[in-house]
């Protein structure tokens, strides 16, 4: 116990001095558990997030937009893999992460439980959902766990194209016919609040927040990040003549921030707990794809074993 408290002190001193923690370094068990939860949740979000976008791949309005959307979705697969690898350095196997996801033990960002009803939704996802994710991920580049931080740096480099491709879709629709502009407005109406809720509960109600900030797993609080996202997004919509679905949204000259309406947390928790329209379908789809691929993995394992045998004989 004595030794533990000394180790804990040294650990906190490292964190305070902005020294990154690496996989083989000593770390408190709770730090490890927090990271396992957060990084894997992040990884699952990247992977599940491919589904609502994949829904429009075969219906993209041009070859250009199809190629772009495909590249974007491929990036998200990559992000998921970088993050699974970072999470695995904490001593949990990839198979286990997938099992926790399929069993409903692990969460992913509930924003991906909403359906993509029109092509404009693909624009709104890139502009708003990736936009919100970027604010969070830029901040997480400074996280104290080395592998997580390095994954974030790589991801951030790739993300800015995601937001621009989405915004371009919205720009084109907003400058199009009356019906097209209405599509863009409708997508904004449906995605605005879910994107704001991506930052999670208010600081006062956030179960893991304080400890996460002290250990620098997170560098800024949910509310700080949420406010930054709102502040930088409003003019991008207003510039196109679009209206945000919040009558209390206005610039506050005193705080130098936008004020906004209270968030409907009942809706948020409902979706987090898996009652959202898409949750069952998303998990079922992922589980099915995984199970359908079992024979490929089996064949690959058999091939691998044969190779090993061959190299032994030779």
């Amino acid at each position, binding site marked *: 116990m004595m030794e533990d408290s000394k180790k804990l002190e040294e650990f906190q001193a490292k964190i305070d001095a902005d020294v990154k923690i690496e996989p083989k370094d000593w770390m408190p068990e709770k730090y490890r558990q927090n990271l396992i939860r957060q990084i894997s949740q992040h990884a699952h979000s990247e992977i599940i997030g491919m589904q609502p976008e994949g829904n429009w791949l075969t219906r993209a309005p041009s070859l250009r937009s199809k190629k772009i959307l495909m590249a974007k979705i491929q990036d998200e697969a*990559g992000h998921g893999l970088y993050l699974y690898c970072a999470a695995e350095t904490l001593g949990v*196997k990839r198979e286990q992460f997938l099992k926790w996801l399929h069993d409903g033990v692990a969460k992913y960002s509930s924003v991906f439980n909403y359906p993509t009803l029109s092509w404009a939704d693909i624009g709104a996802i890139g502009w708003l959902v990736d936009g919100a994710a970027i604010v969070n991920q830029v901040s997480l580049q400074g996280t104290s766990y080395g592998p997580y931080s390095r994954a974030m740096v790589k991801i951030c480099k790739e993300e800015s194209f995601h937001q621009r491709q989405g915004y371009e879709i919205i720009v084109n629709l907003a400058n199009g016919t009356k019906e097209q502009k209405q599509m863009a407005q409708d997508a904004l109406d449906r995605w605005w609040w879910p994107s704001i809720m991506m930052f999670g509960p208010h600081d006062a109600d956030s179960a893991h927040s304080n400890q996460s900030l002290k250990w620098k797993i997170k560098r800024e609080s949910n509310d700080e990040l949420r406010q930054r996202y709102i502040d930088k997004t409003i003019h991008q919509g207003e510039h196109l003549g679009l209206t945000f679905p919040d009558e209390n949204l206005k610039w506050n000259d005193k705080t130098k921030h936008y004020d906004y309406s209270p968030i409907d947390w009942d809706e948020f928790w409902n979706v987090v707990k898996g009652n959202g329209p898409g949750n069952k379908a998303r998990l079922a789809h992922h589980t099915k794809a995984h199970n359908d691929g*079992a024979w490929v993995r089996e064949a690959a394992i058999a091939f691998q074993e044969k190779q090993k045998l061959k190299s032994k004989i030779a």
Partner: protein
Amino acid sequence: MSKDNQGDLWEVFIQPKAGRPHKHVGSLHAYDKEMAMKSARDLYTRRQEGVGIWIVKAEEIISSQAADAESFFDPADDKIYRHPTFYELPDGIKHI
């Protein structure tokens, strides 16, 4: 019971340009060398990040132990004469 797993863990190193050293970029899962190479290309060089790839099975890497780092590296601590700044030069001497 059929076997099912995600394959071995491999570490990936990318050479950004000819003449530059390979740098560690991350890891991936694969069942054999060929698959590891193709996945590394798709995962780590989608934006022309490299002209060369090295891949090593994670279990084959020999690494120093973080916990022993202090004593392991301390032979270098008292040998400051290995640095040019250790030496004093007469005033006015240049290019040395």
